């Protein structure tokens, strides 16, 4: 560790400042270490493809390093990172849509699950897949891109609507509208599964009185 290495407790912005001003590799490694998990998860939720998600996460950090001079020290690094990753995921999804493919991630058993197409959904196959997680994953991939982005950032990554608005560069009201539309699309897509699922049926019959409990934060400490 060099004399001017970032302190272990340095904020992301302090580390990024060192990268920007001094090309400090240790500071950049610190940023990567903190953020590779959340960024990889985001890419995986957005693409449903494990290997592409890892490639996209790597590309996100490559792009962050290449554009380190463009980063404004007054801005939050997390906002900048999320934006780069989201744009890369959008590009990837557009490319795959042109080719009419929606690859699914590798399962835990190392085998690839059956592929479905965006424009030719096969409900029979979905029902046969059996696992609700697979259905959710497949359904989420069929939600239109801008709405899926907000769904993923809010529900899985735990960003507030205000933070999502900063990442996407749109008003907070627009983010909420997209969330409403995303939830509505997803509800329609999952309706057969929701009706068949006993646990969900009971949940719908007796809804929890409390508001949705946030998941444990996956965000790195800022």
């Amino acid at each position, binding site marked *: *560790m060099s004399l001017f290495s970032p302190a272990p407790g340095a904020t992301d912005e302090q580390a990024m400042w060192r990268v920007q001003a001094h090309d400090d590799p240790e500071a950049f*490694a610190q940023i990567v270490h903190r953020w590779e*998990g959340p960024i*990889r*998860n985001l890419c*995986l*939720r957005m693409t449903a493809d*494990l290997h592409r998600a890892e490639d996209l996460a790597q590309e996100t950090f490559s792009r962050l390093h290449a554009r380190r001079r463009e980063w404004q020290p007054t801005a939050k690094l997390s906002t900048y990172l999320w934006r780069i990753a989201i744009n890369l995921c959008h590009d990837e999804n557009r490319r795959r849509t042109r080719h009419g493919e929606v690859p699914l*991630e590798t399962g*835990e058993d190392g085998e690839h699950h059956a592929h479905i197409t965006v424009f030719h959904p096969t409900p029979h196959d979905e029902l046969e897949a059996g696992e*609700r*997680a697979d*259905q*959710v*994953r497949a359904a*989420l991939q069929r939600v239109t891109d801008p709405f899926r982005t907000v*769904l993923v950032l*809010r*529900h*899985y990554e735990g960003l*507030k*609507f205000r933070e999502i608005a900063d990442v996407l560069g749109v008003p907070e*009201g627009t983010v*909420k*509208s997209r*969330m*409403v539309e995303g*939830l509505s699309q*997803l*509800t329609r897509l*999952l309706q057969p*599964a*929701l009706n068949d*699922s006993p*646990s*969900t049926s009971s*949940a*719908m019959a007796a*809804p*929890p*009185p409390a*508001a*949705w409990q*946030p*998941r444990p934060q996956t965000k790195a400490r800022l």
Partner: protein
Amino acid sequence: MNHPTREDLVAHLYGELPPERQTELTAHLGQCAGCQQLATEWRGTMAELDTWQLPAPQPRRVREPENVGFAPLLKWAVAACLAIGFGFLGGRLSAPVPAPGTVRAEFATELKRFAATLETQRTEDRRAVTDILKTMQSQHTEDYASLRRALETLAVNTEDSFETAQRQIVQLASFTEPTKP
């Protein structure tokens, strides 16, 4: 009854409304079947979203600090240096020590041989320089003689030219214009 907007409802479900507004909406959902149904549907969808758990990240190999990566090489290098050093030291210590007189005689012989070689070299150099000087001297003599011959030729020619010019001047001076008939 004022129904909340769907944006407010989704913010309520994610707990992003101010506390008083959150309370109002909770009370409204208790009274409005339509809003209650929509909220229930969305809660069901949110619960479904939670069923998609991501696989645990692959264990990453901890990157070793850079200097530690060279530690094995460094160890081998130090070991090799120590082995060579000990070998050299052992060889020196185990060699028989020569008598001082013998060393001095050997050194004197070496010195004489070196002086002889040096003298021979200097003699050869001196001879070469002398040869070069002689060559230059002879060249200089030849050049001088050649120049002298050229100057003498020039002087003779010039003298001839002067005499010719003098005769012509005399003839010209003694020339008289013939009288016209």
